């Protein structure tokens, strides 16, 4: 299936992949980021169960904490 991640098209993503699976696939550190799916933040405790759908638009948001 196809996903759009940070505005970039990704093809050949396995059907049924979860948010956690995708982050592992992309080698992204899950503790440092939030994932936005179709304009809504995915709660971190649901990363393992949140199954992505063909055509989902995702943004990887890095936490910042400076002031």
């Amino acid at each position, binding site marked *: 299936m196809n996903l759009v991640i940070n505005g970039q098209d990704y093809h050949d993503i396995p059907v049924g992949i979860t948010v956690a699976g995708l982050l592992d696939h992309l080698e992204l550190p899950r503790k440092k980021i939030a994932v936005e799916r179709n*304009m*809504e*933040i995915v*709660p971190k405790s649901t990363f393992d169960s949140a199954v992505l759908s063909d055509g989902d638009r995702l943004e990887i948001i*890095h*936490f*910042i*904490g*400076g002031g």
Partner: protein
Amino acid sequence: MTPHDIKRYARHIVLKEIGGPGQQALLSAKVAIIGAGGLGGPAGLYLAAAGCGQITLIDDDIVDASNLQRQVQFVHTDVGMDKSIVMADTLKDLNPDIKVIPKSERLDAQNASSLLSGHDIILDGTDSFETRFIINEAVLRLKLPLVSGALGRFDGQVAVFDAGLETPCYRCLVPETPPGAETCAEVGVVGALAGVVGSMMALETIKLITGAGETLTGRLWIFDGLRAESRTVALSKDPLCPACH
């Protein structure tokens, strides 16, 4: 309002979203700003100018020369002085009608509730995730709205949390301190970004107080300064949030 108030706040009063009642609400509002730095500076300056009735400034830091590139509430002769005390004087000069209370102490788990209670709105412009978590837990206990801002490099984020049972809190977004969390001292921050993000925090606070428009409650505003782009996304309550579930 006195004739003096009507003249001073004329540009607010003429706005249909603020008007006389909104300005009256601003004059009666009590806000606390934690962190008198890059975000607390512009947020405090604009809220003081707006006639926000009482502003408590909480920061135990002293002005360092490296702050002056972005913390425009300070001048070079302030280096070495208490941030909260210097900034309180600046805000009182800007608007003698308001009350400004400097608290030159570090907010921690022990003093958070007593420092923050009695205010209407809390603004978090601190530079540590641990302090952000303590503030989040305090506003949940006290059931106070939180305007949360953050900076790094060329990026800014602002969100509003309303301490409601069904709405997300800060830790629904950031459950734990990100490993290797970067500070502005380590990775840098472009000075003018502090003005953008701190002013956004002041604007959201003014909207909360006056009821104007739609606030960022339950939403996250993400500003990418390098691309000059921003997005606003919906936050979700995390069913396993360590702070609010």
